[in-house]
C-alpha cells in the first residue's frame, strides 16, 4: 500500500491545475475557441450520423459558451442547418439564432433542415450535456448531469467533474459527483490499479442496477485484480437486489391485484349480491375509459391548463355514464330474465357485442390516446425499488373505491335495503321496499363502479373497443374465488391472485403462470365451491 498523503497532494495539484485551466480558457482563447465551435457546428450540418457525433465531441471540447445552447437545442430538435453549412437555433417564438455567433440571425435561413438524431448521437449528446451542465445553478440539473456522467463514463468529462466536485456544497450532488468521478476513473488508462479498486468501491456504494452495469463491464475486460474487486462488489449488490426482488414482486402483485379488484368489484355487486351473470360488465369498464377519453379531448381543446384535473373530472362522469347504461340494461333486458341465469348470460353477452360495435362505429376501431396527467407519469426510487406513480395511484384508488363501497353497503339506508332485498326479497317487499327500483339502482351502482374502474384502466391499458373483453374472465375469476356475495372475499381474492401471479411469472413465464393459476382455481372451486369466504346461513339455501 502506498502512502495516501502524496496521492492526496497530487490530486489536489491536478485539481488546481484543472481549475486554473478552466478559469483561463475563456480569457486566453475567446476568438480561437469560437472558431473551433464554428467548425464543430459546421460538421454537424449533415445527414451523416457519424459526422454529427464527431461534431458534438468537438463542440464540447471547444469549451465555447456557444456549445451549451446549441447542444440543448439539438436535444430538443430545434437545431437546424442550411445547405450552405450554417447552423441555426430555432426559438420557441419561431425566430432564428445563428448558432455560430449566438446572435439573432439577420435573415431567415434558406430551406432549413433539422439536424437528425439517432440513438448513438443521442447517447453522445446526453454525455456532452452532462459534462456541460455540471456547473448549472439549478441543483436538480447538476444532479442529473452527474448521473449522466455515471452512465456515460465519458473520460473527457473527468476534468469538469473534478472541477465541479471542488465547488459543490450539496452533499447529495457531491456523492453523485464522486461516483461519477469513480465511474470514469475505472475506465481511465492512466489511472493506477489501486485508484481503480477504490473507484470500484465508490461505485459499489450506489448499490443499484447502474452500479451493477458498470461492474459488469469491469468484469468483462478488467485486469484480474479489478475483476476480483468487481466480483466481490457486485456479489454484495446482487444480494441486496435479490432481497429487493422479493419486495418488488409483492409490490407488483399488489398493483396487479388492485387492477383486478377495480375490475371485479362492480361485478361483486351485480353478480355477487344480485346473482346476475352480466357478460356486459367489461363493456361498462370500456365505457368508463371512453368517458375519460372524451373528457380529456374536451379539456385539451378548450381548457388545456386543466389537463391534470381530467381524471378527477372523469371519475363522476364515468360513474354516471356507465351507471345509466347499467340501469337501462337492467330495466330493458335483465329484469325480464331474473331466475333464468342461462338466458341472462346469453342476453348480456349479446348486449356486450352491441356495445362494442357501437363504440367501434362511433370512435373507430383504433386505440384512442388517453394521456397521463403529470402526477401519474414517471416513477420514483424507493430504496432501490422502482415504483411508478401511475401504479401507486391505482393501488390507492382501488382501496378508496373499496372503502367507499363498503361504507355504502354497511352504513347507508340504500345499502341496508339492498342487503335486505338480497337476503329475503319477499319479506323486504312486505316491509315497503320497492324491490324493482332497488334492483335497478343496485345494478346501476355495480355498473357505475365498473365505469370508475375504466378511468383507472385507461391509464395502463389500450382504450379500444376490446378493452372490456380482457377483464371479464379475470373479474369472474376473482369474484368466484373470493366467494360470491362477499366484498371482503373479493378484496382478498384479487390481491392473492395478483401476488401469486407475480411470483409465478418470473419462474414459469407469463403464459404458463396464468395457466397454473387457472388450474389452481379450478381445483380450489372443486374443494370449496363457495369460494374463500363462503356465505353461511339460511340466506344461502333460499
Amino acid at each position, binding site marked *: 500500500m502506498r502512502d495516501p498523503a502524496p496521492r492526496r497532494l497530487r490530486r489536489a495539484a491536478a485539481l488546481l491545475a484543472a481549475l486554473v485551466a478552466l478559469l483561463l480558457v475563456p480569457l486566453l482563447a475567446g476568438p480561437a475557441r469560437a472558431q473551433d465551435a464554428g467548425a464543430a457546428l459546421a460538421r454537424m450540418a449533415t445527414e451523416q*450520423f457519424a459526422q454529427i457525433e464527431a461534431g458534438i465531441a468537438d463542440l464540447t471540447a471547444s469549451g465555447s459558451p456557444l456549445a451549451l445552447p446549441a447542444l440543448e437545442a439539438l436535444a430538443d*430538435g430545434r437545431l437546424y442547418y442550411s445547405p450552405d453549412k450554417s447552423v441555426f437555433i430555432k426559438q420557441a417564438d419561431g425566430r432564428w439564432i445563428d448558432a455560430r455567433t449566438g446572435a439573432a440571425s439577420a435573415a431567415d435561413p434558406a430551406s432549413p433542415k433539422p439536424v*437528425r*438524431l*439517432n*440513438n*448513438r448521437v*443521442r*447517447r453522445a449528446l*446526453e454525455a456532452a450535456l452532462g459534462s456541460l451542465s455540471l456547473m448549472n445553478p439549478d441543483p436538480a440539473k447538476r444532479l442529473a448531469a452527474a448521473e449522466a456522467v455515471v*452512465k456515460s463514463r465519458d473520460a473527457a468529462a473527468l476534468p469538469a467533474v473534478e472541477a465541479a466536485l471542488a465547488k459543490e456544497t450539496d452533499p447529495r450532488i457531491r456523492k453523485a459527483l464522486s461516483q461519477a468521478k469513480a465511474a470514469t476513473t475505472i475506465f481511465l488508462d492512466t489511472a493506477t490499479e489501486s485508484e481503480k479498486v477504490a473507484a470500484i468501491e465508490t461505485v459499489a456504494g450506489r448499490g443499484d*442496477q447502474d452500479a*451493477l*452495469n458498470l*461492474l*459488469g463491464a*469491469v*468484469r*468483462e475486460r478488467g485486469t484480474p485484480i479489478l475483476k476480483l474487486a468487481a466480483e466481490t462488489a457486485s456479489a454484495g449488490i446482487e444480494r441486496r*437486489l435479490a432481497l429487493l426482488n422479493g419486495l*418488488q*414482486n409483492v409490490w*407488483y402483485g399488489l*398493483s*396487479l391485484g388492485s387492477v383486478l379488484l377495480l375490475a371485479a368489484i362492480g361485478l361483486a355487486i351485480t353478480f355477487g349480491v344480485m346473482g346476475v351473470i352480466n357478460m356486459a360488465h367489461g363493456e361498462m369498464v370500456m365505457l368508463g375509459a371512453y368517458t375519460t377519453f372524451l373528457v380529456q379531448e374536451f379539456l385539451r381543446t378548450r381548457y388545456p391548463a386543466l389537463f391534470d384535473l381530467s381524471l378527477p373530472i372523469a371519475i363522476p362522469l364515468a360513474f354516471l355514464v356507465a351507471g345509466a347504461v347499467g340501469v337501462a340494461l337492467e330495466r330493458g333486458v335483465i329484469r325480464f330474465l331474473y331466475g333464468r341465469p342461462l338466458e341472462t348470460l346469453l342476453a348480456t353477452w349479446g348486449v356486450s357485442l352491441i356495445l362494442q*360495435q357501437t363504440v*367501434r362505429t362511433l370512435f*373507430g*376501431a*383504433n*386505440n*384512442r*390516446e388517453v*394521456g*397521463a396527467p403529470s402526477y401519474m*407519469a*414517471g*416513477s420514483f426510487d424507493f430504496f432501490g425499488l*422502482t415504483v*411508478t*406513480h*401511475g*401504479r401507486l395511484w391505482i393501488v390507492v384508488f382501488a382501496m378508496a373505491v373499496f372503502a367507499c363501497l363498503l361504507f355504502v353497503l354497511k352504513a347507508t339506508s340504500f345499502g341496508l335495503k339492498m342487503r335486505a332485498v338480497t337476503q329475503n326479497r319477499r319479506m323486504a317487499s312486505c316491509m315497503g321496499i320497492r324491490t324493482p327500483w332497488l334492483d335497478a339502482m343496485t345494478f346501476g351502482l355495480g355498473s357505475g363502479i365498473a365505469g370508475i374502474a375504466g378511468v383507472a384502466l385507461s391509464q*395502463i*391499458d*389500450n*382504450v*379500444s*373497443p*376490446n378493452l372490456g*373483453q*380482457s377483464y371479464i374472465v379475470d373479474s369472474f375469476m376473482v369474484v368466484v374465488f373470493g366467494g360470491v356475495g362477499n366484498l371482503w372475499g373479493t378484496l382478498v381474492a384479487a390481491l392473492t391472485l395478483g401476488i401469486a*401471479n*407475480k411470483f409465478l*411469472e*418470473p419462474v414459469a*413465464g*407469463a*403464459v404458463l403462470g*396464468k395457466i397454473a393459476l387457472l388450474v389452481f382455481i379450478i381445483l380450489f372451486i372443486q374443494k370449496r365451491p363457495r369460494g374463500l369466504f363462503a356465505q353461511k346461513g339460511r340466506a344461502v339455501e333460499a
Partner: protein
Amino acid sequence: MTFRVTSFLAGAAVAAGVTLASFAAQAQDTIKVGVLHSLSGTMAISETTLKDVMLMLIEDQNKKGGLLGKKLEPVVVDPASNWPLFAEKARELVQKDKVAAIFCCWTSVSRKSVLPVVEELNTVVFYPVQYEGEESSKNIFYTGAAPNQQAIPAVDYLAENEGVKRWVLAGTDYVYPRTTNKILEAYLKSKGVKPEDIMINYTPFGHSDWQTIVADIKKFGSAGKKTAVVSTINGDANVPFYKELGNQGVKATDIPVVAFSVGEEELAGIDTKPLVGHLAAWNYFQSIDTPENKAFIEKWKAYTKNPKRVTNDPMEAHVIGFQMWVKAVEKAGTTDPNAVIDALIGVTVPNLTGGYSAMMPNHHITKPVFIGEVKADGQFNVVWNTPAPVVANEWSPYLEGSKDLIADWRAPLSCGNFNVKTGKCGGAGK
C-alpha cells in the same frame, strides 16, 4: 322478370350485409374484387384501414377507365376476426360472388385458414402483412415482408450500429413470433452470440401487466454488455408495454426496442414522447420523402376526409399488390386465375419509397428495408436502409427443416417447397 329476380337477389344480399357495392351494373359488365378483412372483433383495429385502402384503389382504377374495358367492383365481406369464418367467406367470395382476386387477411392464422380453400378453388390471393415465412402457395402472393426482409436486417443494424451484444426476444405467444424468434435465435447463434446472451419471453395476447417483464429486461440489460429488445409483441399489447417502459425509465439510449408490429397506426394511440429513439423495421414509413409517397398520403387523407389519418406498411403492400394484379391482368388479357398467376411472376411496379418491387418466382416481392426511430410526433425518422431491394427467403436458410427448400412457381418446377437435396417437390420429408 329477370330484372325482378336480380333486384330481389341484390336486396337479399344487401340485407345480409354481405356487400357494400350497388348492383346497378350487370354482373358480366364488371370485374369483381374480393376484400376479405375483419371489420369487427379484435383485428378490426388493423384490418379496417386495409379495407378502406382497397376501396380507394379500386375507385381510382375505375376513374382511369377500369380494367380490360370493364369497371372494377369491390365485394367487401366481414370475417369478424373469426379464423374459420375467413375460410367460409373466401369460399363464398369465389363461388357465389365469382371474384377475380381476393385481397385478404392480417394474421397468419387467418391466411392459413383461407389457404386450402383458395388452392382448391384456384383463386388469386394477395396477402399484405409481414409474416414468418416458411410457406409458398401457388395461389397466394405475399406482398408483406418475409423474415429476411425485416427481422434479420433489423438485428444486423443493432449489432453493427449500436454494438448490441445481448438480445431479448420478446413476443406474443403465437405462430409469427415463435417462428420469427426461432429464426432469429438460429441466426444470432450463427453469428457467435452465446445462448446465455439471448433471453426469450412470450406473453399472452392482450397482455397488459408488463411490470415484471420490464423489470426482467432491465436486469438482463445490466450485465455490462449493450442490450436490445427485439419485439414481436402483437398490436394491442404494445401500448401497455411501451407505457411501462416509459414509466420505469427504460430509455432508447439504454436499451433500444426494435419492433416488427408497431407502425404509425399503433403509435397513434400512445403518447410517444417517452419512446423517442425506440426503433421499428418496415419496408415503408409514412415519413419517407418521395413524390410518390407524398401523392399517396394526400390522396389517402382526401379519401378518408381526415387530415390526421396515417399510412403504414401493410397499406403500401396492398398498393403494390393491387398494381401488380392490374398489370398482370392487362398482360394476360383475362382474369382467368391460371393466366394471371403465370403473368404475375416478373411483374415490376413502382413502390412508394422511390424504388421498384418485383414479383419473384417464389410469389414474394422484392422490398427495401428501412429502420426508423420513433419521433415525438408519432412518426418515424429513417436512420438506415438497405442500398437495394431485398429478395425474400420464403424458406429460412437458418432453420433445420427449411434450409434445403426453395419455391419456384415457373413452369417446369412449379413447386412451393422443392427440396434441393433430394431433388423432389414436397418439403423436408425424406
